[in-house]
C-alpha cells in the first residue's frame, strides 16, 4: 500500500456509494414516462463516484507514496481529545437543554451551563491555564453570547 490515507478514503467512499446506491434502488418506479426520473441524476453521480473511488483505490495501492497532511501523534491525540470534548459539548447542549426545557428552568439554562463548562475545559485543553483568567473569560464569553443570541436576536436557547 503506497498511500494509507487515500486507501481508507477510497474504501469509505465506496461504502458510501453502496449505501446511497441502495437507497436510490429503493425509490418507487415513476408513474409518468419521463426519461429522467428522481433516480437518474443520483444514479449517474453515484456511478461516476464509484468509478473515481476505484481509480483512487488503485492509485493508493500502486501509485506514488504519500500520507496526507495528518499531524504527528503527539499533536493528533490532543486534537482528538478536543474533538471528543466538542462532541460532549454538543451532546450536553442537546440533552441538558432538553432537560431544562422539560423542567421549566429559565430559558438558556442548558446553554449557559454547558457553554461555561466547555469554555473552561477547552481553554485548559488548549493550553491556556491561568487559574483566575480562565473562569473569568469563560463567564464573560458565555454572558456575551447569551446577550447577543438570546436577548438581542431572540434565539430561544435551550
Amino acid at each position, binding site marked *: 500500500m503506497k498511500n494509507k490515507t487515500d486507501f481508507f478514503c477510497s474504501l469509505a467512499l465506496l461504502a458510501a456509494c453502496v449505501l446511497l446506491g441502495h437507497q436510490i434502488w429503493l425509490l418507487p418506479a415513476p408513474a409518468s414516462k419521463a426519461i429522467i426520473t*428522481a433516480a437518474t441524476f443520483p444514479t449517474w453521480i453515484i456511478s461516476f463516484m464509484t468509478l473515481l473511488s476505484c481509480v483512487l483505490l488503485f492509485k493508493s495501492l500502486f501509485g506514488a507514496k504519500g500520507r496526507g497532511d495528518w499531524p504527528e501523534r503527539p499533536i493528533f491525540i490532543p486534537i482528538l481529545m478536543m474533538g471528543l470534548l466538542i462532541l460532549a*459539548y454538543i451532546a450536553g447542549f442537546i440533552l441538558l437543554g432538553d432537560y431544562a426545557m422539560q423542567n421549566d428552568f429559565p430559558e438558556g439554562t442548558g446553554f449557559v451551563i454547558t457553554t461555561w463548562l466547555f469554555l473552561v475545559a477547552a481553554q485548559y485543553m*488548549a493550553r491556556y491555564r491561568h487559574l483566575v483568567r480562565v473562569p473569568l473569560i469563560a463567564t464573560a464569553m458565555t454572558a456575551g453570547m447569551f446577550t447577543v443570541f438570546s436577548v438581542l436576536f431572540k434565539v430561544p436557547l435551550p
Partner: protein
Amino acid sequence: MFETILEAARAACSLEAIVANFIGTALGIVFGALPGLTAVMGVALLIPLTFGLAPVTAFSALLGMFCGAIYAGSITAILVSTPGTAAAAATMLEGPKFTARGESLKALDMTTLGSFVGGILSCVALTTVAPQLARFALDFSAPEYFSLGLFGLTVVATLSEGALLKGTIAACLGLIIAMIGMDPLSGDMRMTFDQPGLINGIALVPALVGLYALSQVFVSLEQVFRGTTLKPAEISREGLSLKEFWLYKKILLLSSAIGIFIGIVPATGAGTASFVAYGEAKRMSKNPEQFGHGSLEGLCATETANNAVTGGALIPLLTLGVPGDVVTAVMLGALMIQGITPGPLLFQNQAPLVYGIFIALFISNIFMVLMGMFTVRLFSKVVLIPGGILLPLVTTLCVVGGYALNNSNFDLGVMGAFGVLGYVMIKARFPLAPLLLAMILSGIIETNFRRALDISNNDFSVFFTRPICAAFIGISAVILLNLLRKQFFKKNVIPLNN
C-alpha cells in the same frame, strides 16, 4: 428608478444598517488578520446572527465582513509573514520584504488604498454591469440555467488542478449531498434513510459552518498544540504619500479589471485574482527585477485585485444565482434564509433590496479604508490573542450558530458531522471548495436539466440548438478537455490552494 434608489439608500443608510456594516467590517478585519480565521468562516458564523435582521441590514454586516476580511488578510502577511487568509497568499511575495527593511507602514498604506480603489471600482462594475446582465438573463430558461450550472461545475474542476481526481470526487460528493431529501419535481424521498430530519435535505448553513469554521478550528489547534505564537512587528513611521500612490494608477486600473473579471467567473476567487494581477503587473513593469524584493507595484497589483473580486463575485450571484466564489456561495445561503431567490427576477421584483446591497458594499469599502488608515496599529495587535482563548470561542459560535438557525438539534449534528468531514478532507488533501460549490450548483443543474427535457418533450437537442446554452456547453467542453490534456501530459500542474 430614482424612487427605487432613494428607498435603497434609506435602507442601507439607516442607523441599524450602518452599525451592522461597521461591526461587520471591524469583525472582518479581525477575522482576516488572524491566521486560521478566514473570510468564509467569518461570513458563515455571521449568518445565524443576521437572519433575524432586515435583508439590507443583514447584508450590510455580511458585506462588511467580506470586504474587511479580504483586505485584512494582508496585514499579518506584511507584518508577521503569515497570510491571514488564502486571498493574501500573493501578498507574501512582496509584503514581508517591506517589514524587513523597516517600511511596513508604506506597505500597509498601499494595501489599504489599493484595496479601497479595487473595492470601489468593483462596486461601480457591480452597479453598472449587474442590471444589464440581469436584463440579458431574463431570456434565460431551463436549458440556459442548466448549461450555466454545468459551466460553474467545470470551473470548479479547474480549481482542483493538481488534484483533479480528488477535486472531482469532492464535487460528486457535494452533488450527491445536495440531492438528499425530497425531490423538488416528483416529491420522492431520496437517500433519507427514513430519517425525518433529512426530508428537507441537508441544511446549507449548518453544513458550511461545519465545513469551513469547525474544521478550521481543528486545523488551527495544531498550531496551538505546537506552541506556535506570532509576535507583531513594529510598524514603521513613514507611510505612503498620495503622490507616490498616484504613480501606480495604471496598475490600479488593470488589477481592478482583472479582479472584477475573475470575480465574475463562477467559482474562482480573490486568491486567483491576486496571483494573475501580480503576474500581469510584472509583465508590464519597467522594473520587473524589483518584483520579489519589495516592489510597491507588485503589492499594489495583489491588493487591488483581491478586493476588486468582492463586487465582481456578487455579479453572477445576484443576476444568475450562481456564486462567483466560495464566500459568495456562503452568502447565497444567507439570501435563501432571508427568503430571497437570486436571479434576474430579483432585479424586477426586489429592486430596492438589490440597490441597497450595492450601496452597502460602497459603505463597507469606506469603513474599510477609514479603519485601515487610522486603526491599523490596533488591528495588528490581534495576533496577540492566544489561540487557547480564541478557538474555544469560535467553537462555541459554531455550535450556537448551527443551532440558532432552525433551533434544531439535528442541524447541530449536521454541523458537527461536516466539521469532521471538512477536517478529514483537508488532511487527506481533498479540496473543500468543489464540495461546497457543487452543493450549491446541484439543484440548478438537476432541476433545470429535467425541466428543459420536460419542456422539449425529452428532446436532447434543446441543449445544442439554443445559442447561449450551446456556447456554455462548448466552453465547458473546451475547459474540460484542456484540463484532461494537462493532466495526461502533467504540464503546468499547480498545487491546489483551498
